[in-house]
């Protein structure tokens, strides 16, 4: 056993012990057990066990229900589905809370919310980034009407995939032009039906019945906390099912039993270390010589994905997801965002991945061009490393300079 092996073993044992202490204090989380397992079957069994939390949510409280508002801004809807994914517990949520707004499931309208008193909603859960004027209006309205605001999902917390559009230097105009004139289907439609002047969506239109309006699309996608004051963050694409149960239980405990809430700004459902700590794969600390996509190789179920040449952002991403993707043989794309110590998720991932390229025998004599050729094997580094965190990065927009791409 080498010096490093001893070190590794110690490190592996540590989170299990920590997890045991944690589960005694609060609700059981089985992620520590997942760390110990080896075979894919046992990993799966443990994972299923981790997902089943039993009856966590309390029933209707004696002195009335809390009010819950759920809204989606610029999001795909996956976050709402993850809320529904709480299975039969969704019924308990109904017992516990009045859902005053939830566009995907409940018939609450904007004017109903606007008529409510300020601060009368207990919790507002918002998923999705702030993309247009409607998103911003609803975020501000719900902030005004609710006591606790939760930023739910990667798009609300970090910008997510919508924020990658910030890299279009021309802003909203270029985006609309592309979508309505350059995409093959729309370009042929415009050529066939509007050959003189292409028809573009208008933000206001004077119809005979009155003025019709559409939301204004912004040049830059913002996160929720760049727009309004946010109390809690739940990252993930989408967040784990048990996280929402834990979160709602914490709110109910606070409202009815006076149990103190976590401090403002807490990220709910994340661990203190990176995803590699939760990932059960064996880390050999080998080097990347060739980059591969998961479909190009027969993925070894037991070995670290980076050791197999698959670019996994686990080393730079905070844990909390129970390594769902890496257990299934897919690399981590970084949806849980950076660890607490860093601001830039992309730069952190870039550092981790670049350090895994081996030192060559002739490294002392080769020039920077050769190194550039090696690193160019990573296609689209900006899109890959910032896939979920573009709106939170240090340089948030693309620039247009001669010589640049």
């Amino acid at each position, binding site marked *: 056993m080498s010096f490093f092996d001893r070190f590794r073993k110690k490190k592996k044992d540590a989170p299990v012990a920590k997890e045991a202490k944690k589960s005694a204090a609060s609700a059981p989380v089985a992620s520590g057990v997942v760390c110990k397992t080896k075979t894919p079957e046992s990993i799966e069994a443990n994972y299923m066990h981790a997902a089943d939390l039993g009856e966590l949510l309390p029933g209707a409280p004696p002195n009335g229900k809390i009010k819950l508002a759920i809204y989606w801004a610029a999001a795909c809807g996956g976050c709402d589905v993850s809320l529904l994914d709480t299975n039969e517990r969704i019924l308990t949520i109904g017992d516990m809370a009045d859902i005053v707004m939830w566009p995907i499931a409940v018939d609450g309208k904007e004017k109903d919310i606007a008529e409510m008193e300020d601060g009368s909603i207990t919790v507002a859960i918002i998923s999705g980034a702030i993309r247009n004027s409607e998103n911003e209006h609803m975020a501000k309205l719900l902030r005004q009407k609710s006591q606790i605001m939760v930023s739910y999902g990667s798009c609300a917390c970090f910008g997510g995939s919508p924020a990658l559009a910030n890299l279009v230097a021309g802003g909203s105009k270029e985006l609309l032009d592309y979508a309505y004139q350059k995409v093959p289907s729309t370009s042929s439609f415009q050529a066939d039906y509007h050959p003189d002047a292409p028809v573009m969506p208008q933000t206001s239109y004077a119809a005979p019945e009155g003025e019709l309006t559409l939301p204004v699309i912004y040049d830059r996608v913002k996160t929720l906390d760049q727009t309004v004051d946010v109390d809690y963050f739940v990252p993930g694409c989408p967040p784990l099912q048990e996280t929402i149960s834990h979160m709602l239980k914490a709110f109910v405990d606070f409202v009815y039993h006076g149990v103190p809430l976590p401090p403002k700004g807490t990220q709910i459902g994340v661990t203190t270390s990176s995803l590699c700590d939760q990932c059960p794969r064996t880390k050999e600390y080998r080097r990347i010589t060739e980059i591969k996509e998961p479909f190009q190789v027969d993925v070894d179920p037991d070995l670290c994905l980076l050791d197999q040449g698959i670019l996994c952002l686990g080393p730079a991403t905070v844990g909390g997801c129970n390594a769902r993707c890496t257990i299934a043989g897919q690399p981590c794309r970084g949806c849980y965002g950076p660890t607490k110590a860093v*601001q*830039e998720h*992309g*730069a952190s991932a870039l550092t981790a991945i670049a*350090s895994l390229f081996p030192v060559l025998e002739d490294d002392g*004599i080769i020039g920077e061009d050769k*190194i*550039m050729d090696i*690193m160019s094997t990573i296609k689209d580094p900006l899109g890959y490393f910032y896939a979920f965190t573009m709106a939170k990065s240090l340089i948030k927009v693309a620039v247009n300079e001669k*010589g640049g791409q």
Partner: protein
Amino acid sequence: MTEFEPKIVAFCCNWCSYAGADGAGVARLQMPTNFRIIRTMCSARVDPEFVLRAFSKGADGVIVLGCHPADCHYIGGNYRARRRIALLKLVLDQYGFDPKRMRLEWVSASEAEKFQKTMTEFVDTIKELGPTPLKEVKH
């Protein structure tokens, strides 16, 4: 109109390039004063986040200086650094920056003249490129 004076951040490693810069100062070599040196223990200590933060705060150019390959005080720090900087250059290129705004150069402790030459060249390059394009866009 006054001539454009760029703001440049130079990261120098403690063991080679910082000593090289010191040597250039002691020898009173003439060079432009547009750069601010930040001393790091190794070129590998320069997290890509530092460089991105420098650019986001308005730096017109960033240069990272380290020991020559095979000459690193920590054996392999500069091998790591050159891979990171290469990847970072690709990222900056995708952002739309001219890749010439970011440079990696090797300057040893005895190469005061190379330090002078490198810095003068780099300042000239940035002067040619003009102010950082981030100034024009709200970010």
